């Protein structure tokens, strides 16, 4: 499985969520067939709620992990 990482730390609100939704839509075929995991690096605390919630509403699995001073949100097939 390929891991695609996007660093969106420091971006203004709500760019973090908008970019995340764009990336999910752009790679939806591979996310849905399970060949890709999308990993988003963010320092936006609010998005730790909104991105996983949006991803789950779209039928994906989403996990949040703390990494150093920021967070990683992994989105993959449910």
């Amino acid at each position: 499985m390929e891991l695609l990482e996007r660093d969106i730390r420091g971006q203004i609100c709500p760019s973090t969520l908008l970019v995340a939704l764009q990336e999910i839509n752009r790679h939806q075929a591979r996310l849905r067939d399970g060949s890709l995991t999308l990993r988003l690096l963010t320092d936006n605390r609010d998005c730790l709620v909104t991105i996983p919630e949006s991803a789950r509403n779209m039928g994906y699995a989403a996990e949040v992990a703390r990494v150093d001073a920021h967070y990683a949100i992994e989105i993959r097939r449910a």
Partner: protein
Amino acid sequence: MTTEPHLFLMAVSLALGLATGALLHRSDICFAGIFRDLFLFRRTDMLRILVLLVTATALLFELARLAGLLPLYPFPLLYAPTAANVVGGVLFGVGMVLAGGCVVGTLVRLGAGSLASLFALAGLFAGSALYGEIHIPWKAFIGATTFLPGRTTVPQLLGVAPTLPVLAAALAAGVLLARWARAGALHRASPATGHLQPWKAALLLSVVSLLSYVLIGLPMGITTSYAKIAGWLESLVAPAHVAASAFFRGVPLDVVHPVTGAPLRGGPGPRFDAIAAIQFPLAAGIVLGALLSARLVGELRMHVNVPPRQLAWAFSGGVIMGLASRMAPTCNIWHLLGGLPILSLSSILFVAGLLPGAWLGGRMLTAWVVPAR
């Protein structure tokens, strides 16, 4: 004026700012996001928190008024309704969405290390300076469109004591809040380190707002300090222009401080006065409170790999917001945490403008700032 009341004001404001910065950082309450996400993502979770915050603040203010703790009621710098409230609200809504945060959110994010917020803050200074150039015609517009002169609140409009209208509004909001609480809709699960439930933060912020009104004599406000900085920066290059400016020469605050009995006078001009003593420590406290909060959870970092387009729009949003906060007049925090709780007519009009402004800002954001690829 002696320095003692100034020291008192500075100490109280700094403490209130520290609390506000830390509470907003830990709870992720973003006043710009509340309105923006309503239109952009159809999210209403934080709007419910705002309803709780305004309702709790309204009840606390009214209790304090009945207890005789608010001799300045309605508070100073609150004016009769005018079309300028709506126009300013619309522009403020656009600006706060483009800037990625309102006047307070910008300070909170700056404290947590946001480079974009630094650009937004610079824009706020520029927008405040820009207003100085349109102050005279805008003041004429305010004068021409002011209606219900001498009446600043709904109770004054109705000719009744504030208790009944405030309780009626709080009861209506309370029914909604009780329904949301039963459905668990006021709870927000977050994996963020040290996350504070927004409903708890809202209740604590209502106490902070009350303390500001009781101890300072005014609810929290920041944007006149931005105008002061703008005036000072402008005076470095055009001192005669600033000295002659009707805007910077104005002294709209002229009351007796209810706690110390000292005269409180101040305005947007680049000088040390009561406004400076109140607002600079408050703004510094918010930045410092967020900084300390971010440091304590190990998240204090500044990331510089922000798309230049976002930085440019953050600055532009700041300019629009700085201009709007003087046109409205004053900002969303003043109206949401001060005016709305006492049913201020100008605050109701400001929020009525804020809603379409946030919608428009969201459209501009998705079209220009984060365009679909």
